[in-house]
């Protein structure tokens, strides 16, 4: 179905403008991730009618509603479970899950590892802002140690999840990570995710400036996002990073890429074989 797209990317073609103004805080990185996703969708000429966005609960979960597509805002931690049913029942749809660090690593952790293992075609974009922003700034599984939150008033003492290592270990065919400062690279990584024939997982480091930043005195929004650059390899700026550029901290770019059988296709071949052998009998 045609969407009457103009050739140049215009974000307004992809947004539900009547829902504006959006509810994200000033300086929040989620809008950058949203724009990167929409530009990737545009450049790959994915029809809005065929695009299905499934999101969970939290700030990340609310981002999906602004997209002019088939949008499903489901229960906390469960978008991957809903998306699994949707993608298996409707392989013609382009399924994208937008989730957060709490949504997919805490309450929905089981669904994440099994989605990685299964390798059903979909893109999972996890917006990691280190905090439960929607509920007022509680500690999440990615809150850095010593950071202050409303449930770690003296600094967090819990170890931090590395979502990408987890996804790769669980078998995800495509794993990537990017910071919101690297918008062109983020968009290109999302294109790779959308083109990958299997389950792709992308972690986006997205600043929570108003709640997490303020509480931890991390500076103004521009200062926070520019801080993302401080540990980057200079030549990687604006490009897809094939090699990790933060060797001692958080690696970004394409972190894992393996060709594995896509689950929906495998299932359908398996069924076809059963039907064929039945006919022979």
């Amino acid at each position, binding site marked *: 179905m045609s969407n009457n797209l103009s050739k140049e990317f215009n974000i307004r073609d992809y947004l539900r403008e009547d829902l504006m103004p959006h509810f994200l805080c000033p300086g929040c990185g989620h809008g950058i991730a949203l724009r990167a996703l929409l530009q990737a969708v545009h450049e790959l000429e994915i029809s809005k*009618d065929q695009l299905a966005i499934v999101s969970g609960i939290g700030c990340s979960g609310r981002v999906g509603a602004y997209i002019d597509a088939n949008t499903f805002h489901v229960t906390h931690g469960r978008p991957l479970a809903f998306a699994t049913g949707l993608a298996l029942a409707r392989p013609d749809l382009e399924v994208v899950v937008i989730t957060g660090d709490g949504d997919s690593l805490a309450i929905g952790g089981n669904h994440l590892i*099994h989605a990685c293992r299964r390798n059903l075609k979909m893109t999972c974009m996890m917006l990691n802002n280190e905090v439960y922003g929607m509920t007022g700034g509680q500690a999440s599984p990615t809150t850095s140690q010593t950071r202050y939150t409303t449930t770690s008033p003296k600094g967090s003492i819990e170890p931090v999840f590395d979502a990408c290592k987890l996804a790769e270990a669980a078998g995800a065919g495509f794993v990537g990570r990017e910071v919101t400062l690297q918008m062109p690279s983020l968009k290109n990584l999302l294109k790779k995710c959308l083109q990958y024939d299997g389950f792709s997982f992308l972690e986006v480091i997205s600043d929570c400036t108003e709640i997490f930043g303020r509480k931890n005195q991390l500076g103004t929004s521009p200062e926070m996002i520019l801080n993302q650059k401080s540990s980057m390899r200079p030549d990687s700026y604006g490009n897809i990073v094939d090699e990790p550029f933060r060797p001692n901290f958080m690696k970004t770019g394409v972190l894992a890429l393996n060709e594995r059988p896509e689950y929906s296709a495998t299932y359908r071949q398996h069924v076809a074989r059963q039907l064929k052998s039945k006919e022979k009998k």
Partner: protein
Amino acid sequence: MSIKYQNLQGNHACALGAIAAGCRFFAGYPITPSSEIAERMSLELPKHEGVFIQMEDEIASMGAILGASMGGVKAMTATSGPGFSLKQENIGYAAGAEIPCVIANVMRGGPSTGMPTRPAQSDLMQARWGSHGGHPLIVITPGSVREIFDETVRAFQLSEKIRTPVIVLYDEVLGHLVETLPLSGAAHKITERKWADESPETFMPYAETTDLIPPMPRPGDGYRTHTTGLTHAEDGFPTQNPETVVKAMKRMLDKFELHQSEIESYETVCCEDAEVLVMTVGISARAAKHAVKTARQEGIKAGLFRPITLWPFPEKAFKKIISKVKTVVVPEMNTGQLSLEMERLCPKKTKIKSINRIDGEAIAPKEILSLLQSVAKK
């Protein structure tokens, strides 16, 4: 023409009923005593080009069937007590977002892990009120293997038509009971969901239609709507405007009232002149029917009222019968759930006598009969 017969287990009848109703997606998780439903579905669905998937947990199974249903495919899951508890949040989502789906719950002894291989009827209230927030849904309590098949078909018909989760609720005895059924070649009525076909520009996914059931937009058809568990307005987007909220909730609740005659289903045995009435469901109703027939032979004016659709309760039909009844006997395999409903519905003069078993054994006809006899003597 000779009729062919087959021996069928209750859980297999549930699976075959689902297939006959057009179910083409099943997501489940192993749990006693319902696993045979998943096992049979894993055999049957591939034959019908459907999808079977064993998910990582009960919550995911419930999520997956809602994803499939939102994609336009008839979907179900099956579980038992502990798994039923885990599914409740997403059952509430299905009620709130009005996503058709069928959930079979084969009841076992509880609380908690309880007695996995023993029967109970202790989820009657959980089936109705298990999810948070005031939400409507339909609960069907079949009483035989044949009825599990037929009522699973009806569960899909109601679910698709009324856009609601439907729970098919029976106990372990019925789940594992094998009965001989005629193999019916008759095609079952497959209810096609009412799909949106108007212009996407003006389409409102939760509009107040005359039948109070808005047509569903199918992803890919150009509607690009929003579905959410947040309280939403007619356009599908979240709202907290008090008037809009009340209007949306009222339509959702009223649709059950409007279609009550289709939802309602019950069986009456010798109710016309009954002075002592047995009111129960499922396997206990089967024992009750035997007891009532024996009591009648002994000259006791006994009757049986058996809701097949338990929730919403067939209130009007019951109230017509109850006016002449002196005593209501309520046998149930729990500590007294249906008897609460009887206290609500019966006139004050009506005596309510309970028979409760919580030992993992089914209630025998003689237990009910002896109570009927003692009531008649007084």
